[in-house]
């Protein structure tokens, strides 16, 4: 697997398009998310900005298999603009040391269940290592109950509000805040059977060449 973490402006447009396409395929077509801004096979919204940092994961065939999005909470982001009602306990957390983690997508069609579980953890690990490296203390996210449960295993996780049911998706979502600590990194490395940091790669060259 190749793990890439880059800011939006460092990523070629072709790769961003691939990511928007994968997000649409998984989130809209498979999970049935109702995303008003998603159209023409692309999931791109107002929070895909120049301030956004992306995690992109490619398999050995240079196919994109997972992605995640990190937005500074001092800028408009999903929780502040669309889902503030999910943070009823004490408001939407904002600050320089807090980023929002969203659009965490793993393309299950290319992976077995055990590969998905492992990749899920690897993306959590790479996000946590990156967050610590740039001085972030916490990540927020809006997630379903099942992923909230998983996040507790990984990070110290607190709810920001009660779960709310969305009839269009027939799912309950909960906003949460997680501490990005060295303890979380240790736990994730143990789960992934890794002893050191995940090496970060550049975008696989042959893939970009094909896209171009």
């Amino acid at each position, binding site marked *: 697997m190749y793990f890439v973490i880059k800011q939006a402006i460092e990523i070629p447009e072709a790769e961003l398009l691939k990511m928007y396409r994968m997000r649409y395929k998984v989130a809209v077509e498979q999970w049935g998310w109702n995303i008003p801004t998603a159209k023409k096979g692309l999931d791109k919204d107002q929070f895909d900005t120049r301030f956004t940092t992306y995690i992109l994961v490619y398999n050995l065939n240079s196919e994109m298999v997972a992605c995640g999005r990190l937005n500074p909470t001092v800028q408009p982001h999903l929780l502040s603009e669309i889902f503030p009602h999910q*943070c*009823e*306990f*004490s*408001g939407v957390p904002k600050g320089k040391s807090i980023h929002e983690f969203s659009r965490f997508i793993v393309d299950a069609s290319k992976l*077995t*269940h*055990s*590969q998905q*579980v*492992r990749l899920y*953890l690897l993306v959590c690990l790479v996000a946590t290592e990156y967050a610590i490296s740039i001085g972030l203390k916490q990540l927020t996210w809006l997630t379903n*109950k*099942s992923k*909230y*449960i*998983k996040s*507790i*295993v990984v990070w*110290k*996780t*607190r*709810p920001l509000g*009660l*779960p709310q049911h969305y009839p269009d998706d027939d799912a309950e979502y*909960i906003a949460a805040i997680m501490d990005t600590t060295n303890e979380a990194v240790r736990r994730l490395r143990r*789960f992934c*059977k890794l002893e050191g940091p995940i090496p970060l790669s550049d975008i696989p060259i042959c893939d970009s060449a094909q896209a171009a």
Partner: protein
Amino acid sequence: MGTGVIMGKNITEDGLLAIDKIEHTETLEAALAAFKVFVSMYGFNSVAICQLVNPMLIDLESPPIFITDWPDKWKEHWWSNDYMQHDPIILFLLKSRKPFSWATAYQYASKFGKKILEDSRDYSFNDGIAFPITTGIGPMGCVSIGADEVPFDPQVLAMIEIVSINCYMHIVKLNGNEHEYTMAKLSKRENEIMHYVAEGKTNWEISKILGLNEYTIKDYLKNVACKLNTVNRAHAVSTAIRNGLIIA
């Protein structure tokens, strides 16, 4: 901001405080006690936390969790009569992803299941609610709490559910059974067989090397496929190598 005051208490503050207290505990019993303090403020008088595992799929480092504050007599009665296999709450848990009341489980229970819940009333288990802890692949456990009368305020129940989830996962962490995230280990024999498979040997060849029946080898490999969630021989080998279960 914040949810309202209910039953003269602030459920948000109580819930968040309970999560903090639970996460500072270092034993299963202390975590259970901290959780009980929270739910008893809302009229609940018993707690049971259990972990569901499929022993075919999972090698646990320690036994599955089953902790309760039940009276010793009821605990003994429950175990000695093998109620685990028939308890309507556990059976209903397998098909419900949402919290359900004990009364609902009773409705769908077998005759024997109904008897279990009726017996439990002798120990003051009149009603209660069960919170399934489910992930994408199904139920992994349950937090079940009893009360004379279940409070049906949705805000209270929603907060109790969140505290239950945090408590359950903390207990799982304490017990070292985070099986959702760790691949099942292969047994010594399975490991040995996978080494020969990785070397390209056939089932017949492996059976001769190990002095076992060829069908036994097939059975071992079926178990390996089940544990690793793989579809064929090559897939099993590559998955086992990738996950460090065998060394290439």
